[in-house]
């Protein structure tokens, strides 16, 4: 396998992969669960992020040729290993189908009321298929062009909101004890644990010794941006943030300068579209990569389009309407995603280490 991307590029991709949907969705859910203390939730969830990066790197070091797919096959036997891989791939398909549907619904309900949602989703999947067929290198470079722009735009939205903020809304802290904060943190951890997917691109990273460093920087950066988003949203809307599906989007409507610079929702849309583009592409790439490795394909390019079709169908199969998705995300979804991206890797790591100890 050729080493193609730098650890900085890896950092950018992971950074955007987690942030894309979280900034828009998270403030609403955390306000619902944690109330006044919602802004603290990312701080505690970062621990899960650090742990996930650590376990991903450890598993990468254990794996033959750094391939997670091969690791499962070598530790649990070919048949069970392949079965686990397929299950894990289906799990990823499910998660990304939810995110894709979410993206489509957001665009349709806020901007293109008369456009069918499948047009929005198909156009996005076509772009993702294109970048995936170019390989990790192209994805990383595209990220290098866009991700700094996305981050700067996001920060600017929050900076422009500063005059509207009321800092007193966050007090008193820990009004209802630590339990609500913990509840909210678990939901936020559901975003952080997705960083586990980095394991699939680690074999492509050139500088192995800086992977862990950039991984931790990545988690810290995501945490900081989430913190900024949460604080801004709560100081702006206080508890009413939970009534909106996309509080940051609503917040952007408050921005008005010099009677000219106003209605910047379209910028939020662009940030969201670009962010989701990277998230979907990344999942698409990991699904493509792990499926072609599991099936041991000679010419893996041929499965790109079928995977796209699978993603498209799953986005409509998984739920009848947006309410069902929202319900799933805020209730069982968190536990579901944590099981797949946090507990599953930890168990695999524990079992592999034990097996190696027994052998030795």
């Amino acid at each position, binding site marked *: 396998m050729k080493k193609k991307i730098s650890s900085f590029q890896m950092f950018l991709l992971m950074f955007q992969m987690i942030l894309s949907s979280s900034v828009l969705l998270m403030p609403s859910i955390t306000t619902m669960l944690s109330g006044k203390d919602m802004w603290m939730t990312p701080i505690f969830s970062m621990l899960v992020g650090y742990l996930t990066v650590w376990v991903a790197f450890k598993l990468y070091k254990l794996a033959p040729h750094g391939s997670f797919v091969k690791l499962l096959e070598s530790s649990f036997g070919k048949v069970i290993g392949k079965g686990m891989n397929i299950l894990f791939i289906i799990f990823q398909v499910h998660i990304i189908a939810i995110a894709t549907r979410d993206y489509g619904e957001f665009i349709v309900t806020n901007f293109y009321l008369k456009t069918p949602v499948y047009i929005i989703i198909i*156009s996005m999947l076509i772009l993702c298929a294109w970048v995936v067929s170019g390989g990790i290198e192209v994805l990383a*470079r*595209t990220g*290098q*062009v866009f991700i700094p722009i996305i981050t700067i735009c996001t920060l600017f939205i929050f900076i422009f909101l500063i005059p509207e903020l009321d800092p007193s809304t966050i007090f008193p802290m820990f009004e209802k004890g630590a339990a609500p904060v913990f509840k909210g943190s678990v939901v936020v951890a559901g975003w952080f644990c997705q960083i586990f997917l980095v394991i699939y691109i680690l074999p492509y990273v050139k500088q192995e010794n800086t992977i862990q460093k950039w991984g931790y920087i990545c988690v810290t950066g995501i945490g900081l941006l989430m913190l900024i988003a949460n604080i801004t949203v709560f100081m702006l809307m206080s508890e009413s943030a939970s009534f909106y599906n996309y509080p940051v989007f609503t917040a952007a409507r408050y921005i008005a300068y010099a009677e000219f610079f106003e209605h910047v929702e379209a910028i939020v849309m662009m940030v969201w579209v*670009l962010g989701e583009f990277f998230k979907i592409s990344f999942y698409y790439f990991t699904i493509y990569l792990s499926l072609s490795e599991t099936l041991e394909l000679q010419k893996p390019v041929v499965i790109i389009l079928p995977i796209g079709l699978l993603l498209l169908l799953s986005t409509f199969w998984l739920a009848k309407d947006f309410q069902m998705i929202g319900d799933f995300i805020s209730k069982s979804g968190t536990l579901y995603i944590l099981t797949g991206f946090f507990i599953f890797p930890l168990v695999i790591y524990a079992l592999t280490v034990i097996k190696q100890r027994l052998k030795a």
Partner: protein
Amino acid sequence: MEANAEKAEPRISKDLEQSRHHIEQSLKDCSDAAYLSCKLGGKVPGMFVYFNGLTDEERLNEIRHSMFSWEFSETEEWLETMEQEVTSFSCTRIETFQEMMSQLTLGNAVLFVDGSDGGYVFSLGDWRKRAIEDPVAESVIRGPREGFTETLDDNMSMIRRRIRTPSLKMKGIEIGEYTKTRIIIGYVEGLAAPELIAEIEHRLAAIEVDGILESGNIEEFIEDQPYSPFPQLISTERPDTVVAGLLEGRAVILTDNTPFVLIAPISIFSLLQSPEDYYQRFLISTFIRWLRYLFFLVALLVPSAYVALLTYHQEMIPSALLLSIAKSRESIPFPALVEAFIMETMFEALREAGVRLPKQVGAAVSIVGALVIGQAATSAGLVSSPMVMVVAITGIASFLLPHYSVGISIRLLRFPIMLLAGVLGLLGLLMGVIGIVIHLSGLRSFGVPYLSPLAPLMAGEWQDVVMRPPAWKPNRRPRFTRSGGSIRRTKGSKL
């Protein structure tokens, strides 16, 4: 292989009559071939062969006369004496008729002597050529004013004069089954990566074609991704641009009979830089560079943004402006997308007409152009005045790009993005931009990523992208060069 080819080639015979017969056979129906008999030392018969108009006939006659008065002794060594005499005219000896043909087409005269199994080439090439003039397509305010011409040797001399070191290498090859066009690969040894030169040679050698008329023919054969709308080599007619490229470790490809020289490898940022950037004060050049980046985006996106905003996102336009746009669009029968398409197509057509037309009719085009894209079109109620403004701005923006080839790619890409913007609004526009960036991320020019040094990010190199660094600031060589990343200039005498 080569030995076999040599054998098959007919060699020049000792018998002058036989040689003459052979030459006349192969040059049958070439009415510009000329034969001139002479007598060396008044005794030995000889013959000059050359092409009319390619050779300096006056000088040839002088040589012929001086030969008549040579003194030959009647010994057996007369052949050696003759060869010594001939060498004083700095001529070379050839063995085969094929060599003779390539010498003749270069304008040289070939002498055959009875009793000698070789031809003697006199370098007398002298044909009509254009004088060195201002480069037409790339003018500068400050900078050298000479441009390349159609004559390969003149072009090589212009480069050689600027890099006075034996490290400047110029490898020559011939391409074209019939044209036998001379191609020169130029590079500076020690700066250019040997793999790059090998790769270029390899790609050039693979070309099999009847003829090469312009470097554009070669460009299409050797670029990495022929289906891309973006140029993957720079073509320039400025010697200083070529020399700057050579000093950066790039390779250049000179083609005979065209003033346009190719430079490779490049990135998209090389296409957005003008040689004058380095001659003006660095603050000013930095400003102009940013202006260029801005207008690069303007040329690509403004018509589509206008279409998207008017069709889908009216709320983003400030109310006062929206009202005035709405007022001017009141009587327009077309939707914004159609209006934009008509006007942009009109503008492209006018520009193309302006380039192709003879100079005498050119004035007519500008008059008609002013009518079509201007007040008359607005008062006729066909297009709105904001649309005229948008077209004018994009027009100016595309003229701001220093290299014509990238300007034309932008003009082409504008249309699909406009269509996307008309179908999906800003989302469509964004999709178009993402698509272009995906394409550019995958593109390479002779193995060098097209978006470098931005993506992949190369520390130290990108300062030449975000600004024009001051000349005294240390900077690094591009990473693709042989000593990639090494310090290129030091602080020098700057205090």
